[in-house]
């Protein structure tokens, strides 16, 4: 499957789409497929800080809890409230379901993340394990 080029990806299967100094964050198609039906999304409040690489919330399927890892540092400016009542939207379209938006404190962090092509390769290797 093709991963959109308009964003960067992490090895923890999150995507981050920058728009100037703001970025939106979600999980990838591969992540939602691995999780199965998502029943719960646990996100921080507006104003909280994200530190790159640290957990900032979680996504739960019936069977399991999966931590969310910050792809970049910043402070939360918006949270997708829809996911509190309709977490299945993430399964329906993971790449369209932003979870939160942050004001990036260090935009250069995005440079070291994976491109769509690199992420696709990474996923192919993961699937083969």
């Amino acid at each position, binding site marked *: 499957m093709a991963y959109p080029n308009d964003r960067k990806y992490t090895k923890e299967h999150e995507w981050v789409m920058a728009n100037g100094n703001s970025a939106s964050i979600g999980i990838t198609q591969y992540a939602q497929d691995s999780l199965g*039906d998502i*029943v719960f999304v646990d996100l921080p409040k507006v104003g909280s800080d994200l530190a790159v690489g640290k957990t900032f919330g979680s996504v739960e399927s*019936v*069977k399991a809890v999966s931590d969310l890892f910050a792809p970049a540092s910043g402070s939360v400016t918006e949270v997708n409230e829809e996911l509190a009542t309709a977490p299945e939207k993430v399964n329906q379209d993971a790449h369209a379901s932003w979870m939160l938006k942050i004001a990036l404190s260090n935009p250069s962090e995005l440079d070291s993340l994976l491109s769509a092509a690199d992420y696709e390769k990474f996923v192919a290797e993961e699937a083969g394990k």
Partner: protein
Amino acid sequence: MSVVDSPPSVRKTALNAVHRQMGAKMVAFNGWDMPVEYPKTGGLVAEHMAVRTGVGIFDVSHMGDIRLAGPRALDAVQHVSMNDASRLAIGQAQYSALLYPQGTFVDDVIVHCLGENDYLLVINAGTREKDFAWVRDNTRQFDCRVTDLSDEYTQIAIQGPRAHLLLAKLTDANLSAVKGYWFTHGTVCGLPNVLIGRTGYTGEDGFEIYIPSDGPTSARVWNEILDAGKEYGIVACGLGARNTLRLEAKMPLYGHEISDTINVWEAGLDRYCKLEKPDFMGREALLQAKLFGPSKVLAGLEMTGRGIARDGYKVLDMEGAEIGYVTSGSPAPFLKKNIALVYIPPAFAPLGTPVQVEVRGQGVAAQIVATPFYKKPKLLV
């Protein structure tokens, strides 16, 4: 999702290749390579709902089977099992448990009366070897043969309100004559003398069949059942749905609600423990324990705040003090609630008692509710 072979130390049932070929997501469970769900047909939630509304099938061949046969087989069973096997007619089964002298659990078990002084114990996958050794070593004083038949059978569970309609298409046995917790033998998919039990681990009507464990036979029967079940919306079900189904029905899982550190009274399994039987392993300790009453009891809980209680999470009182723990917790796909079984002090057990569950460091509101969480509706057809 992977199509790579699992490492050789993990055991496989005869249907392992079939599950993989169906694209099942596999997991290592108590040393077995088992399907957790089948994404191609909808996955866990779809499987759970199929069992509650139609029919689903499970490969449960990882479970174990111990046969006790001989002049004193009944005495042997009575000695190791807490329920009263003398009440079983031929063709009848009962839920029971094997207990340590302390009155705690070796395992839970379904005892089937195959014939006079001839019993079949169906036991958990994770405790196969332990249970067999336990039964063999603690029945030496009785004239009876104890045989491990675990590898002889592929065991398939057919569960749901339509299970009897489906199985009726594949067998000559008169299923309407077989009540819950009874069994019969009949030809199934052309195989003669197959044990067909009206038993299961889902809280629905259903059957468990025991067929020869060779690969081709097992695969043929599995596929014939799937085929015959199409009109009833059948799906193959994995361990994920098996767990959510049994949890809604408040059925214990060894290592969670019952274990070698939990006794019969704490687990609330009094009705399966016949103290009037003069002798069985664990009886003395249980009589003693009964005098003092349990310090913790198994209760049902429902989340009222936003969060999911999971295995091992702490239960807190409303002030935030730790009072117990979750033995099994999960979203309940049919009930559409987040439920859990918990061990708490008896004082907190009355229905409606507000408590909290610690989820990622925060207390989330919950309350004690009646169990089973789910009870199947009366069968009308």
